């Protein structure tokens, strides 16, 4: 499944520009401890978090994530968003809380 398909199926907000929407999603990871995400998430993951600091982009880039989803209506910091566009790793948003959006993403990924 591509990031674009995920966005359409779950009605996610796209904060970044359009680059990166064709990234292929292979798995998901939910955590707000960046040290944990760095250690345990996989390449191609869609990462669900409430952290908005610029460091999330560095970690998503390091781990070659497909996209990041911010929960509860949170918005990325300006410099976080700028890096997202540069790295072509989209930042998406939802008003849902972490538990709910994780459940929905899990179901979609497991149907594949």
């Amino acid at each position, binding site marked *: 499944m591509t990031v674009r398909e995920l966005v359409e199926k779950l009605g996610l907000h796209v904060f970044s520009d359009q680059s990166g929407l064709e990234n292929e999603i292979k798995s998901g990871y939910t955590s*707000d*401890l960046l*040290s944990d*995400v*760095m250690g345990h998430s996989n390449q191609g993951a869609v990462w669900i978090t409430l*952290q908005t600091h*610029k*460091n999330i982009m560095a970690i998503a880039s390091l781990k070659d994530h497909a996209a990041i989803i911010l929960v509860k209506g949170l918005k990325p910091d300006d410099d976080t968003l700028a890096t997202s566009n540069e790295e072509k790793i989209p930042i998406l948003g939802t008003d849902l809380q972490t538990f709910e959006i994780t459940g929905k993403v899990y179901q979609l990924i497991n149907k594949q």
Partner: protein
Amino acid sequence: MPVFSADLHIHTVLSPCGDLDMSPVNIVKRAKELQLDIIGITDHNSTRHCPLIQQLAAKEGIFVLCGAEVTTLEEAHCLCFMPDLERLDKLQSYLDLYLMDFMNDVNKFGYQVQVDEEETIVYEEPKLLIQSINRNINQVEEFTHSLGGLFIPAHINRPAFSLISQLGFIPDDLNYDALEIYRMTDENFCNTYNYRKDTTLIRNSDAHQLNRIGAERNFFNIEELNFQEIKLALLKQQGRFVK
């Protein structure tokens, strides 16, 4: 140059996790026994015990670095110190304004009390002090520096509530005056993370009990005991330094 012994991260009874005997009088007495010259008073998100401790410590020739251990929105703990009581008040107002509204449950988290010289309770903090404030790490850094304060991320490589646990690594644009490394770690830590290589690394006790005060110490090579000299030493300026 004279050398002064310092433990810059000490909690009082005001922190819910601080022992009940961590009163201003007891802390100063203990610091004197241990021959500490400088103590940093850093309760979670509160500065309320600093003025009394400073007053008591002055009689013993001990310098008090007044501040708080601020929990940023990312839940990274950062030591913020102010140059004088006027600006400490401004830090307190900032903390009062931005501390989240979750109330303390004494049975779960412990007492959050301020006491006077006779150990009589003069104030009880209703909001839980160990939650975060609604300001991110960059905002806290900018605010602290706008008042001429010192900004030192705490126990940065601790597995919880640290800059590195919460944000994965040290942001390259973060303007810190020093870094506090976790007391359990050795110097090899320094090779595994990227930080400005001229940075002063300090280790402190993070004492919540009287018998922990001074368990870690830093030695300030400064001309005299004041905020400005301490700042110069942390920044390695004008021949001042910390060992």
